[in-house]
């Protein structure tokens, strides 16, 4: 299971890369493998300011559907357009081309609720 050491994670299987006051968010390799083949990702919260753990979208796989939870509080300033037409990128490259949103952080120093790679690894028992 791929768990890059330089990212932060949530118990809901999202990952976050924080650069300055912008956080890039996606779902983990573990999450995509649990979901199976992803058919589309629905994110209709562009421009909204949401609290940490709010639902910012959903991901529909062939077999199941799952909510997407915001790992950090802030404004959703960008949605990855590429996964609209190529949702399989979330399966094939969850930490790269399969990223989902960028968030302008309400508090760039706030790391509450976020896990390190080793903590996340422990959580999923990998």
């Amino acid at each position, binding site marked *: 299971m791929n768990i890059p050491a330089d990212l932060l994670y949530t118990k809901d299987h999202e990952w976050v890369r924080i650069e300055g006051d912008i956080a890039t968010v996606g779902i983990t390799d573990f999450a995509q493998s649990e979901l*199976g083949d992803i058919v589309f990702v*629905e994110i209709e919260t562009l421009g909204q300011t949401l609290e940490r753990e709010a639902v910012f979208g959903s991901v*529909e796989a*062939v*077999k199941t*559907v799952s909510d997407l939870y915001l790992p950090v509080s802030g404004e959703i300033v960008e949605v990855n357009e590429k996964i609209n037409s190529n949702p399989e990128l979330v399966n094939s490259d969850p930490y790269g081309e399969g990223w989902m949103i960028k968030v302008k952080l309400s508090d760039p120093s706030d790391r509450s609720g976020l896990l390190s790679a080793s903590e996340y690894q422990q959580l999923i028992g990998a």
Partner: protein
Amino acid sequence: MKQTALTHIHRSLGAKMVPFAGFEMPVQYEGLIAEHHAVRQAVGVFDVSHMGEFLIQGPEALDLVQSLTTNDASKLYPGKVQYSCMTNDQGGIVDDLLVYMLAENSYMLVVNASNIEKDFLWIQSRNIYDAQLTDVSDQTSLLAVQGPKATEALQTLTDVQLGTMGYYTFVKGRMADVDDVIISATGYTGAGGFELYVPNQAAEHLWRAVLEAGQAYGIKPCGLGARDTLRLEKAFCLYGNDIDDTTNPIEAGLGWITKFTKTFTASEIIRQIKEKGPSRRLVGFEMIDRGIPRQHYSIHDAEGHSIGHVTSGTQSPTLGKAIGLGYVPISHSAPGTEIFIDIRGRHLRARVVKTPFL
């Protein structure tokens, strides 16, 4: 959790294992969509050993089968298979099943894994005939080899002329050096192919032989995930989803296997339903708006009234669109009718279509 004779092989192939009907079963290996396409375009092999097999034997075996099932088993001859269902006293469906006529006075019923115990007790309770009932589920393994290349691939393993076998017929023959394999031209994918019944001891050998023989044809081991999307594209009913103890064969679209040339459990009730017409019907629909219907989602009319529910739904890998089955009133059952599916709080547009979808 029960295992099949092949569970250890599925694990070694890296399958994702899930509990299903009390069994630990592979839901997918490399990926559902790749497995689905392998079956539609080439060939795939499924371990479906969780299915149940009962033998009904004795001088009145046919009488028992006829009294329990909706289809006319007197039309069977040795080597012929029939799709049928068992009804309860209210006209609901106890199970849908395959009936094999093995020989004179000897039948095999193939039932859903989730219903093995229920079915056995049901048949036992209705066995007022001189017929012996035996559950051989635990000794029997079942491989489904499905797809347009299944015949060619399997032909390398047997002298039985597979290409000349009719749909829903079977032979008992030698395959991959295993004697007395029930080679059955049946399946749950609509892609053509065979189902192979063998004793558990032979299952691993046959599985490996099939994978090897299929290699040149692009065979993939396939899980229950692909089995479900494949059957849904063909609108084959899944027990527990589309049919159950509360649905009758007529509203479920199984009138074609319900024959009133004989009597069976609740046949009079069902005959009346057929005469008057059912109040609702299982229909196929495809989504117009973007969304994937799933079991238990409610179906609404244009005014927002709840009119039924989704029994199965998925994204069709072959068609590239979201499809589903569900019960709606007759007034909303005609192809072309616009209906609305409540997908996580939003009423999304869908259209009733003819089935099969593919």
